[in-house]
């Protein structure tokens, strides 16, 4: 499967009369976009705001972050099963607006606070503090159920991202990246002797508001299956994980730009052979977890012929059991493992960083930081997305001391962070 990804570099967003891209500036017709999104009657009203890197601004009640992309050639459409038809994606040509995101916000009861600072120490931790962000701030229709609120803002976020990217359809991209990974029988060409590496990609889909979508459906019944990495780039996986602590979940932006997938692609044919992505769910019961681990290890070993796998997870607690089972089953059949984990080691850094440590074969971890450690955030000039923080009594505009946990993707468990821990 071969995907040409046309990269359109965007340096700024502005509201304007027509939606277009000129000279790396994304102009947005606010009224047109608002009208498009408000066609969904579940949204009572909608504000749009623009925030830029290095501005003293704080976005609160962040629900998800999405990168604008569209399909310009080849089958399917971006976000298949969500806003695109359920057709195969990952082939042909797509465009991406690099340097821009759509940020979904919203106040939904029970959803933990998530905040994104565009400057200061928290901004250093996350990729989307270095992008220009179009922030969606909805008021949900009166009496709307939680699950409907979540779905309404999800659809609005995806539609907005596709709408923005549509402006690049006739544009000459700044550069084109080629992602070409052939079917297994042809994969060995030019890579004989290099270690064969697969990626085991754990998702956590277990309840309303706690569910990523794969081709448009939640992953609650998903058995471990193979995805082509190009499918991720076209939005085959979308986050609907709103109720999970922000640091623990994987937002749509990190699914679209999964950095493990990119690192493996980048080094394919150079020092490894990238054999594929095994996507699986962290099911709620032990017998389902055991079944999935057996099947994931089988896919890695007996179908893909992997020498090694990188395993990433979503969430904590019982997700650690999937991690341990996957590690154990892979190592048992001779597939070497590396596990990428956030370490919730307590505010003082002394608590055990995993809830399950049952596999003594787990001997190679990459840490993405202690999400319980506090981070000091300076005061900001403007707060976007609400007037008060959820579960924090301090005024949202002032200096804050909050756990890293509250900053989406700061300890990204797919590895989209430079944060780590040292033992002192």
């Amino acid at each position: 499967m071969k995907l040409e990804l046309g990269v359109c570099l965007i340096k700024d967003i502005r509201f304007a009369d027509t939606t277009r891209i000129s000279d790396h500036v994304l102009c947005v017709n606010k009224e047109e976009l608002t009208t498009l999104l408000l066609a969904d009657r579940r949204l009572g009203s909608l504000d749009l705001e623009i925030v830029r890197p290095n501005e003293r601004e704080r976005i609160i009640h962040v629900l998800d972050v999405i990168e604008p992309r569209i399909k310009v050639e080849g089958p399917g459409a971006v976000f298949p099963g969500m806003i695109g038809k359920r057709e195969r994606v990952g082939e042909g040509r797509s465009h991406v607006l690099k340097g821009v995101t759509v940020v979904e916000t919203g106040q939904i009861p029970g959803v933990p606070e998530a905040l994104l600072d565009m400057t200061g120490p928290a901004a250093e931790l996350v990729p989307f503090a270095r992008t220009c962000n179009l922030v969606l701030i909805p008021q949900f229709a009166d009496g709307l159920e939680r699950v409907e609120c979540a779905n309404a803002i999800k659809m609005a976020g995806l539609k907005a991202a596709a709408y923005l990217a549509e402006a690049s359809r006739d544009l000459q991209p700044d550069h084109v990246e080629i992602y070409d990974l052939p079917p297994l029988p042809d994969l060995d060409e030019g890579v004989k002797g290099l270690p064969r590496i697969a990626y085991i990609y754990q998702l956590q889909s277990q309840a309303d508001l706690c569910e990523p979508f794969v081709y448009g459906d939640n992953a609650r019944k998903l058995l471990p299956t193979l995805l082509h990495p190009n499918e991720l780039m076209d939005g085959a996986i979308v986050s609907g994980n709103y109720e999970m602590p922000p640091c623990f979940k994987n937002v749509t932006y990190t699914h679209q730009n999964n950095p493990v997938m990119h690192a493996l692609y980048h080094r394919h044919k150079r020092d490894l052979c990238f054999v594929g992505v095994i996507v699986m769910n962290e099911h709620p019961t032990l017998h389902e977890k055991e079944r999935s681990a057996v099947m994931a290890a089988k896919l890695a070993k007996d179908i893909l012929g992997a020498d090694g796998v990188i395993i990433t997870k979503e969430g904590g607690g019982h997700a650690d059991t999937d991690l341990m089972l996957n590690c154990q089953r892979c190592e048992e059949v001779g597939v070497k493992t590396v596990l990428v984990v956030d370490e919730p080691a307590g505010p003082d850094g002394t608590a055990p960083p995993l809830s399950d440590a049952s596999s003594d074969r787990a001997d190679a971890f990459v840490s993405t930081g202690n999400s319980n450690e506090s981070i000091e955030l300076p005061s900001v000039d403007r707060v976007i997305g609400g007037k008060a923080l959820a579960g924090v009594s301090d005024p949202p505009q002032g200096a804050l001391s909050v756990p890293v946990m509250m900053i989406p993707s700061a300890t990204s468990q797919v590895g989209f962070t430079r944060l780590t821990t040292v033992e002192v």
Partner: protein
Amino acid sequence: MEKLRIVHFMNQFFGGIGGEEMAHVSPQSKKDAIGPGTVLQEVLGKQGQVVGTVICGDNYFAEDMEKAAHEVLRLIESYQPDLLVAGPAFNAGRYGPACGKVCHVVQEQLGIPAVTGLYEENPGVDLFRRSTYIVKTANSAQGMREAMTNMVKLALKLHAREQLGTPEEEGLISRGVKKNRLAEHLASERAVDLLLKKIKGEPYRSEMRLPRFEKVPPAPPVEELSKALIAIVVEGGLVPPENPDRIESARATRYAKYPISGKDTLTQGEFAPVSGGFEKAFVAQNPNRLCPVDVLRELEREKRIGKLYDYFYTTTGFATSLASAKQMGEAIAKELKAAHVDAVLLVST
């Protein structure tokens, strides 16, 4: 510059008083350096002066650490030191904890830096790694000069309030405390590097060690279930309306017990869960789904169990720290034991 005043703490063996037969001796002090103190003085050179040595018998210290530490502290204080050096105690099982304890109280009460040196497996390491600086040493006194050199280097740094490097760089035993840092590369890139090294059989360094959990051996099986007193303990935060004991919805530190004597079943509205860790609707609808009073009453009537205990215990397990969980677990177990409960149904969410 005035020479730094250093006091050296050691046991009766290194202090030249005697071996095991003299392990009972109480704290005493001598002016000047003795035994390993001569190595300490050599390493210090002109930078400092060992102004006193405080000696305590191993058994004397081990028998009442608080009392011994207090007595040792008074002797140390009398020399008005700038620094304390304790040991090194290598792998000595009573001497190591004594060194750790003395360093800890000296830092706390005299406000001066204190340094000891221990072998990694010395029991003093686990007891005091969090509260004092422990230089990593060999497991026997053959490593004396090297240990003393590293201890002095560290002590002088601490006195000058210099920024310390990583435990590895300083030759220290890690305190086991995690701190966030920014790495040079993304975690994803480090993961690929680590995996390739592991596959090629090259040496690799994991960024985290698997935590070790205490293994709790299960109690022996209940001999006669038909005579046993059974209690229910839940961690789904099941509480009466208004949550009178303010059981937390996450990271709990509190537990409570509520009476169920005379109840055949739990009804909707009588109890509801507060835990944030699971989909609560089904339990709110029927609390027996979490706390199965209804079924246990049936088993009681059928005489398959002896009796259901008159209270159920509840807390929230969601994101609760191991330390709190252990504390609450021990307290609940103690109460149940005192009430002669034979077995517990632990219901998790």
